[in-house]
């Protein structure tokens, strides 16, 4: 139902002039999506103490302020750590799990419902759920004590050494399964004959997974990698807002959270939007890099 749709038979006559039917949606899109995006660039050049105050134009001052601010450096480092750890773990595991799921093992229906669950639940549900699980008296510490590891219990979200790790663990917890289901559904349309031929040649599972199946769905792998990269980079703010508010200290302040924090708690809109512009830039750079890396390996 996606890229396979055949193009319509070329009509000899001129195409009907019905493109005006796209104008309402284009207008809507321009007004509510493109407009605010341009607004972000504009606000990044303003000194603006909050929505009720007047703003003054300061050019690139905000960027100079942002780039020399230690908090920004921490946020940049946290975001890079988050992306560099979460994505390389998530994607291969999700692919292998999707491959496994696509073989329709016993109980795969139960498995796929469970794997799919994180895709259904909202960030605020995830947040409140893990607030309970990771609290000092919560389920995770209880579990550790139950299996004799009481010595390593801690306040996971309040300890600077574990807070960012906890956020990343939640990313992985929810991302792997959901991505695996997406892979499984893509894999179900891969021609099985190739794999059967590989079987006859005595190829092992790993070989079939990575040498034969992976190249076939490489584009899809790339698309999902880029999507997960963008989700991780851009949407971590919401979970962090519910669970740690960027702390303790700046240990969980990521770039997207910094955008939010500067705008809504610290009333520094120009700074916030300058970070937003840099974040957008980072997103684009990341996508180009991911594409390069995935292309160069074949």
């Amino acid at each position, binding site marked *: 139902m996606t890229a396979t*749709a055949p193009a319509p038979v070329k009509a000899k006559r001129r195409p009907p002039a019905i493109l005006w039917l796209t104008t309402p949606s284009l207008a809507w899109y321009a007004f509510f999506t493109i407009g605010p995006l341009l607004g972000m660039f504009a606000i990044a050049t303003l000194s603006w103490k909050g929505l009720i105050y007047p703003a003054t134009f300061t050019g690139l001052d905000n960027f100079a302020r942002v780039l020399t601010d230690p908090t920004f450096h921490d946020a940049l480092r946290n975001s890079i750590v988050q992306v560099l750890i979460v994505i390389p773990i998530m994607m291969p595991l999700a692919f292998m799990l999707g491959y496994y799921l696509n073989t329709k*093992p016993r109980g795969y229906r139960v498995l796929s419902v469970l*794997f799919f669950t994180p895709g259904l639940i909202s960030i605020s549900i995830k947040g409140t759920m893990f607030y309970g699980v990771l609290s000092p008296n919560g389920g995770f510490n209880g579990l550790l004590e139950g299996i004799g590891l009481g010595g390593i219990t801690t306040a996971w979200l309040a300890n600077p050494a574990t807070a960012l790790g906890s956020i990343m663990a939640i990313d992985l917890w929810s991302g792997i399964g959901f991505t695996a289901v997406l892979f499984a559904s893509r894999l179900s349309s891969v021609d099985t004959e190739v794999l059967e031929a590989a079987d006859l040649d005595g190829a092992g599972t790993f070989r079939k997974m990575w040498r034969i199946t992976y190249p076939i769905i490489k584009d899809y792998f790339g698309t999902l990698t880029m999507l997960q990269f963008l989700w991780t980079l851009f949407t971590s703010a919401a979970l962090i807002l519910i669970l740690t508010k960027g702390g303790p200290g700046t240990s969980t302040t990521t770039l997207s959270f910094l955008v939010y924090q500067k705008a809504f708690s610290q009333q520094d809109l120009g700074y916030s939007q300058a970070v937003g512009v840099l974040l957008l830039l980072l997103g684009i750079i990341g996508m180009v890099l991911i594409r390069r890396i995935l292309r160069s390996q074949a």
Partner: protein
Amino acid sequence: MTQILRTARPSRTSARSRRISGNRMGPLSTVLAWFYALLLAIPLYYLVTSALKTNIEIFTDPFALPTQWLWENFGEAWQSGSLGAGLANSVLISAVAVVLTLVLAIPAAYALARSEGKVAQAITSSFVAGFLIPPFAALIPTVVLAINLNLFYTREFQMLFLPASALPLSILLLTQFMKTIPHEIVESASMDGAGHFSILLRIFVPISLPGIVSVTILQVLGFWNEYLFSLTITGTGADVRTIQVALPTLISDSTNYGVLAAGTVIALVPVYIAYAALQRRMQDALTAGALKG
């Protein structure tokens, strides 16, 4: 374990070799897959059982079944989080937003499916570019827009704004569907004197109904689960906030974890009911959503 190699449409010919090579990896991957499933299931189990316990019982026996089933936790969560109002607001916002999305997207998809040439191409590309825009990056300018429209802290702005964020994906998915409709049907209908609107309503909408249903599910789920924009634009006022915004307010200095868990369960139930009813469709919808990107 032979299953590791069994594909969607297994053929009988190489069953033997499949079994042989499958044995090496099979048990391990099965164990790992179920271990991960357990990791997903445990927090859910913990959540549901905690919803029926007191704080003390949650702390001392985190994984035991409740000794006394505290159903009043649900009542308290419902009350103190005013979750009823939250659910009603979520239903209202999602419903209006999805209707508006379809009203805007269906004619656009129809026009794009039936047009070729540079202009149509340019319009399609501009919607494709929409995927690359992180909605979150423009959160603050969107707040400014809401203030200037005098719609800050209202549900109405969300109803108008959410469709815009959903348009690129909706239009591209629907265009794909509508492009599969054979030209001959359209030709003969227009010979019979049918105008654009009747071709759209009598031919394109019915034939692409599966696509429309997928887009509807996908976007309703997205609208329903939206958090950050709802929090900042619709706000936290008990009369306007959505269930997603209401839920984290149950976290406080003296958190009653049982009540918090009960509230979370209440927020989960509608999505699970929808999922149980539409399992196949829902998976298809979300898969299609991620395919484009």
